[in-house]
Structure formats: C-alpha cells, structure tokens
C-alpha cells in the first residue's frame, strides 16, 4: 500500500515537474510546479516526516501563488494563447539534465548507503523543536536576520515609491562636462524606449 502510494506520488512529482517546461500557460506552469511540490511533500509524510511534508505543501502553495503572480506580470503571452517555445541551448540543456540524472542515479546505485531507519513512534517534530531551541539556536536566529535582509533587499529593489517619492526621481548622475548633459540614462527616457521581443 505504501509502495503503491509512493509510486503514484513520485510519478506525479516527476510528471508535473516535466510539464512545468512543456505547458504554454504560465499559470499552469506555476501550479504544475506546485503539484510537484505537493507530491514531494506527501512522499515526505510517507517517509515519517509529517511536519516537513505538510509544511512543504503549505509553504509551496503560497510561494507558487506568488510565482504565478509574477509569471503573469512579466511573461509575454502569459496564458499561452499563442503556443510558444522560449528556450535556448536546448540540446545542451537536455544533455546536462540527462547527465545529472544518470550521474546522480549511478552514484546512488553504486555507493553503499548506511541504513538506520527513523525509530517507530519517534516524535520527530519535538526533536526538531529541541534542536532549534538548543544546539541550532544560532542557525535559527541567523535565519531571522537573513530573512530580514531579504525583506529589506526585496523592498528596496522592487518598490518604486518610497517615503521620498519615486526611487529614480532626481537621482541624475553628474555631467560629463561641468554643467553638461548628465552621463548615462536619464530617468524619464525609458518611457520612449520600448523594445518588444518577437517570438524566438
């Protein structure tokens, strides 16, 4: 029963992972990736990690939702109304993927892996909690600082309007000659500077 479930879930994970790069609609692509994550999360539950497994589903649902928003925001033809292929170095990539898969699989098959199962009935969430608050406390707090840095970085990079107005307003570079034209790009210039990409 567990084996059948594992087989079904791993097939789902790999199939939907593959579909991510094959569907035309960007929304479908994001949620295919989400399905792949959900399948992996459920496999993790089968592997006696109920917390990590379910939390993966929880986190990835949210992250893929955001992923879908950005996909739709920035990808041309986000719904795939015109079928399209936007790839480069295709053969090389396929080869790299196949090599990575076969190399890793060979390594797995050839190496002698130690076997020590999770003991039956172990309270793995409690262990994790003690680990977080005990030996790995520093990792935990470092993660907090890293996330703070991420939040600030993301806001700085993405937000246009801060408390002092638009982020690129009034920040002209100095002139090439004293009192001359500012060097480089002028903030207002970008408006007249469309360049659309055609189909590749």
């Amino acid at each position: 029963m567990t084996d059948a479930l594992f087989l079904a879930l791993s097939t789902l994970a790999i199939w939907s992972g593959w579909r991510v790069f094959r569907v035309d609609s960007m929304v479908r692509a994001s949620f295919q990736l989400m399905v792949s994550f959900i399948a992996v999360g459920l496999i993790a539950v089968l592997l006696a990690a109920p917390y990590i497994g379910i939390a993966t589903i929880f986190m990835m649902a949210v992250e893929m939702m955001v992923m879908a928003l950005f996909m739709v925001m920035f990808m041309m033809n986000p719904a795939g109304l015109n079928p399209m292929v936007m790839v480069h170095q295709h053969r090389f990539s396929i080869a790299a993927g196949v090599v990575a898969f076969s190399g890793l699989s060979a390594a797995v098959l050839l190496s002698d892996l130690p076997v020590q199962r999770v003991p039956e009935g172990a309270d793995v969430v409690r262990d994790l909690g003690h680990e977080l608050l005990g030996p790995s406390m520093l990792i935990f707090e470092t993660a907090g600082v890293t996330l703070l840095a991420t939040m600030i970085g993301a806001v700085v990079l993405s937000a246009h309007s801060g408390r002092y107005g638009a982020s690129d307003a009034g920040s002209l570079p100095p002139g090439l000659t004293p009192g001359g034209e500012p060097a480089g790009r002028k903030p207002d210039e970008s408006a007249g500077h469309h360049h659309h990409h055609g189909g590749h």
Partner: protein
Amino acid sequence: MTGIAMPLILVLLAIAFAVTMQRIGAKTEATWPRRAPFLGGGLPETHAWQRFHVRYYPMTLLFIAFEMEMMFMYPWAVVYVETGIVALAEMGMFLGILSVGILYGWREGVFRWQ
C-alpha cells in the same frame, strides 16, 4: 501513511463529485455573443489575460520572506512549554527581527497599491 491516505481519498471523492455534477446541466451551443465577457453590454478590445499589473507586488515579496518564519514556529510551539522562558525570548527576538522588516516595508509604502 494512514494519515495522508484519508485526505487523498476525500480529495478524489470531491473532485469526482464536482466533475459529475457539472455534467447535469442543460447543454447549449456556445455562440460567440454568448461567450463574450460580461461588461454590461460593452466589449473589450483584447483578451483579459494579459501581463496584469499586480499592484501589490512588493507586499508579496515581503510576504514570502516573512512567511518562512512559520516553518520555525510550528516546532517551536511543540517544545515551548518544556523549554520555558528561553523559548519565549528566542521567538520574541526572532519575531522582533522580522517585525523590523514589516515596519520598514510599511514606511516604504509596500502595503499601498503601487
């Protein structure tokens, strides 16, 4: 194993039910005027699917970083009573650090429509 078998069965049941129910309704021919999107008699020029300007995009970035804290909080909650005041202090510090990010984001106006 049993823990996830039941939710999966329920999901399959619900999907099967929903798909079956949708076959009940009357069948009609889908003509073009019937398929046009509802705009109160008006018509759009283009498809609605577009590069949609998500006006709250900085908030979503703040959100995915902030939301990671949940991963740490659940195990923390399980051992909280056993660990006591240390756990309170550590989580207080953790949340405090992240709250700085929220305050910064608020000051930068990320919760407004861009």
